[in-house]
């Protein structure tokens, strides 16, 4: 289903994103003005590196945050909530352009402390059911919880279409979905802890092909 563009339900979000990409913002410019029609001038190898370290901000920046920064600063639009449909569709469109590129997230140098923070969060138990990401996704993938098979929890297909809720899901929203399962409090998508977690989770997929939009349970 995922490999057939006509059957992949996530492709409608890609198409929606393509429209937004060419729409002029409040100041008359559109994404296409700088990045070319359909994102033709974008370097897909660079897209595969996100989240990248921003010297200006002194911390990592996710692809969605980068897109959103352009959306407000360069196009003059009103800010949008993280993982809300407008900016999420743009992220899906842009990352889909890099489909087939190998995930290539930096983990050393300036990125290292944030990668370590993400790794720490990944290994920290939380919630009433006292679980952590590593237990399902590093220790026990392949085993079955009821009828589901535990996966490695890779993010190379994100934002992905989830059959569970019938729509495109951003990665931070997916983190919240997991935390809900072990009765842990959600965090607001876009917060620093989830950005660090995204650095770590994406880096676990270094070398895998980007599959956005993935089709997942």
């Amino acid at each position, binding site marked *: 289903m995922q490999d057939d563009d006509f059957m992949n339900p996530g492709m409608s979000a890609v198409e929606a994103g393509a429209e937004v990409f060419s729409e002029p913002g409040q100041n008359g410019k559109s994404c296409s003005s700088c990045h070319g029609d359909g994102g033709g001038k974008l370097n897909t190898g660079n897209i595969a590196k996100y989240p990248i370290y921003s010297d200006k901000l002194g911390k990592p920046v996710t692809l969605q945050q980068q897109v959103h920064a352009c959306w407000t600063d360069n196009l003059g639009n009103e800010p949008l909530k993280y993982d809300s449909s407008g900016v999420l569709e743009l992220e899906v469109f842009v990352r889909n352009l890099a489909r087939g590129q190998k995930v290539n997230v930096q983990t050393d140098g300036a990125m290292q402390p944030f990668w370590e923070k993400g790794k720490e969060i990944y290994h920290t138990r*939380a919630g*009433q*059911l*006292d*679980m952590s990401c590593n237990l399902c996704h590093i220790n026990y993938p392949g085993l079955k919880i*009821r*009828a589901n098979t535990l996966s490695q929890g890779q993010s190379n297909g994100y934002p992905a279409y989830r059959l569970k809720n019938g729509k495109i899901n951003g990665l931070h929203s997916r983190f919240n979905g997991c935390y809900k399962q*072990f009765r842990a*409090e959600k965090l607001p998508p876009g917060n620093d802890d989830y950005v660090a977690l995204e650095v770590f989770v994406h880096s676990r997929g270094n070398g895998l092909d980007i599959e956005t939009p993935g089709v997942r349970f």
Partner: protein
Amino acid sequence: MKKLPCILTALGILVAIPADAGDKYCVWKADNLSINESLCGLTGSAERGRKLAYERKKGNCLACHKMPIPEEQFHGNIGPPLDGVGSRYSAGQLRLRLVDMKILNPMTLMPGFYKNPDDLIRVMKQFQGKTPLTAQEIEDVVVYLGTLK
């Protein structure tokens, strides 16, 4: 029971009554990897325990353990199968595993069903201060597991 503190306070009498004595955390003691005394001295029922084993919002044991509960499909296999577990472990040993399996295996995926809620972090509001199973429910499951010979 909840109106009593108000009446007493109105009469000028300050009384310390726990807000809901039924939810008080039963203090337990592990001795040689076994919790020999039943929580708060409660007695369990195997019939209730069996139901708790497959209810998703309760024990949900079938999520990870294969059990002799044929009417439910798709038992998980993350934990060991529980057929015959009543012959392998005493009630005290079973109780320890239910209360907090992390005592035996720090890398376990199994929730601490009677772990002290104060030791948990970032718990969803509606579950704060509560254990996944009550003391009575733990005792029910212990008795039920004891019947699996």
